[in-house]
């Protein structure tokens, strides 16, 4: 797969998802599309952390912060949705900044464990801080973006499912583009250098820990945006173990990224869409869905470690081997 493919897949994703919104027609399909879009953003931001060869098992922890802070800002402080959305991302970024130093001194498995603990602790806090988060009952009646007048488009009611879908899509695509810019920027070059040889990178003047924190902050910002989008779509938040903010949700995200292919920018987009579609088709046997996803995850890791987006390269290699004999 050459370098152009990432751009192609982003374009294709944009086009198809816009058309899908038109075709969907009913609220149920639209809600599925909204969840897919949010998860694409979550998975893409999670992959950002992978660039520095770190694995986060706590990405939904930041989504939780984003979701609750956005919902609470709108509900308790009467801040407009349009302001609360970027603010909730910033709160996540700030949290990541504070946690960055103790967290990012650890690498590999130990960083993964810390993020895992973080997500679970955040969930428990949300569960136990009744006065703020409503505890086990969670928050209900979270207002949506409401009606707003836009130049050229007139007045739009973003509380309808279709309009909220397009709003989500716009935010998600914009965020993906920002992440894509970062991927193509010199920042990413430095990140790759730090991944290759951290002490050498420091010796030529790169502040490795600062870059690691920056990377974590950026990823967390977009996770927060994802969470906020979810909060105003769902209109209610809960933090049961099995909810969107349980450990399992983090694991699903990780599976999306790996199955799509973590080496490629487009990997998480492809992985999320493919798996969520499969999961949707398996709706009629609800209980078996985790089993299906689990099996796919195991099989892909064992037999296709580069993920779905690695297939074309694998085929090219196979062809070359066949030619050689």
């Amino acid at each position, binding site marked *: 797969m050459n370098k152009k493919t990432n751009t192609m897949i982003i374009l294709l994703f944009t086009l198809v998802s816009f058309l899908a919104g038109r075709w969907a027609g009913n609220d149920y399909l639209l809600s599925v599309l909204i969840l897919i879009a949010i998860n694409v953003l979550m998975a893409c931001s999670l992959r950002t952390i992978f660039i520095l060869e770190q694995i986060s098992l706590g990405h939904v922890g930041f989504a939780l912060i984003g979701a609750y802070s956005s919902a609470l800002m709108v509900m308790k402080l009467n801040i407009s949705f349009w302001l609360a959305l970027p603010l909730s991302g910033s709160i996540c970024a700030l949290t990541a900044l504070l946690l960055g130093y103790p967290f990012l001194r650890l690498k590999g498995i130990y960083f993964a*464990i810390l993020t*895992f603990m973080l997500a679970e*602790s955040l969930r428990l806090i949300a569960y136990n801080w009744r006065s703020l988060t409503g505890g086990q009952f969670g928050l209900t009646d979270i207002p949506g973006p409401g009606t707003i007048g836009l130049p050229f488009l007139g007045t739009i009611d973003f509380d309808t499912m279709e309009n909220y879908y397009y709003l989500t899509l716009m935010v998600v695509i914009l965020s993906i583009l920002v992440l894509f810019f970062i991927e193509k920027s010199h920042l990413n070059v430095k990140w790759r250098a730090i991944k290759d040889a951290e002490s050498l990178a420091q010796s030529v003047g790169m502040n490795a820990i600062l870059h690691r924190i920056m990377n974590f902050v950026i990823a967390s910002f977009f996770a927060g945006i994802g969470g906020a989008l979810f909060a105003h779509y769902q209109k209610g938040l809960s933090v049961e173990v099995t909810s969107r903010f349980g450990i399992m949700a983090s694991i699903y995200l990780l599976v999306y990224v790996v199955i799509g292919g973590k080496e490629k920018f487009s990997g998480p987009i492809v992985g999320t869409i493919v798996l969520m579609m499969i999961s949707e088709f398996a709706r009629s046997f609800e209980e078996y869905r*985790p089993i299906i996803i689990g099996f796919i995850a195991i099989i892909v890791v064992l037999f296709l470690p580069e993920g779905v987006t690695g297939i074309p390269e694998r085929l090219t290699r196979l062809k070359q081997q066949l030619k050689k004999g």
Partner: protein
Amino acid sequence: MALPFQVWVQIIINGLSLGGLYVLIALGLTLILSIMGILQLAHGEVYMLGAYAVYYLAVKMGINVYAAILFSMFLMAGFGMLMERFLFRRCEDKVLSPIIISTGLTLILQAGAVIVFGLYERSIPRLSEGSFELMGVFVPKDRMVAMVISACMAYMLYLFLKRTKLGLGMVASAQNPQAAQLKGIDPHKMSLLAMAIGSGFAAAGGAMAGSILMLTPFMGTLPLVKGLAIIVLGGMGSLSGAVFGGILIGLIDGIVPVLFGPLTASLAPLVIVIIILLIRPQGLFGHE
């Protein structure tokens, strides 16, 4: 805090019995991590399956609880060895692939448990009935029994690793896998052994938790979270760290909610781990 003395004794004993459970989980996780270099995130599900196995053996088939626990440990040890042989051994890298595979297993086993065992809560017969008096407090006997069993198992593991050739070989394999191989130590055999012991310990933990608390298909998540906190706290792959960390986290879980309420309790382990890592990035008992 002005708590009556009896309450103190009570919460400390609660903490210690929780700690005993956590130690069993953390020892297994640490053993697997240090010898195979992988994070076994389905460890909580092994714990859950171990508990259900005891339930079926003891309640449905009427076998003695202790015999059932022993049997369940062997069963889970076998399951652990199967996981090593057919899944973890085939991973290309040591970090990401095992994480994905074990989380895949978590998904399968949890959902499978919901389908097979159902969502209603069950319980295992108590390890021991009644209670006895200690410093003016009534202590349930089953908690004491659980504590004693955990302590014995931890000590037996210590003796095995320190005194037997096979145990020494395991530790060697953890410290320098390639050199161990050149001494004639088969790394696959050591990995199988680590998974067997780790999974057996998890089963014992699950059975004891099942006799004190309730059985549910999702019961494995909490001990996994605790176990992971303990292995970071105690130090990377250190067994004494796992024991110490287990007791520490157990005590925190026993004491902090009573003293400061559940909100502080939910944050306490993370804060403690972060503070310790800021001072000693390699954990309490870890090597530099």
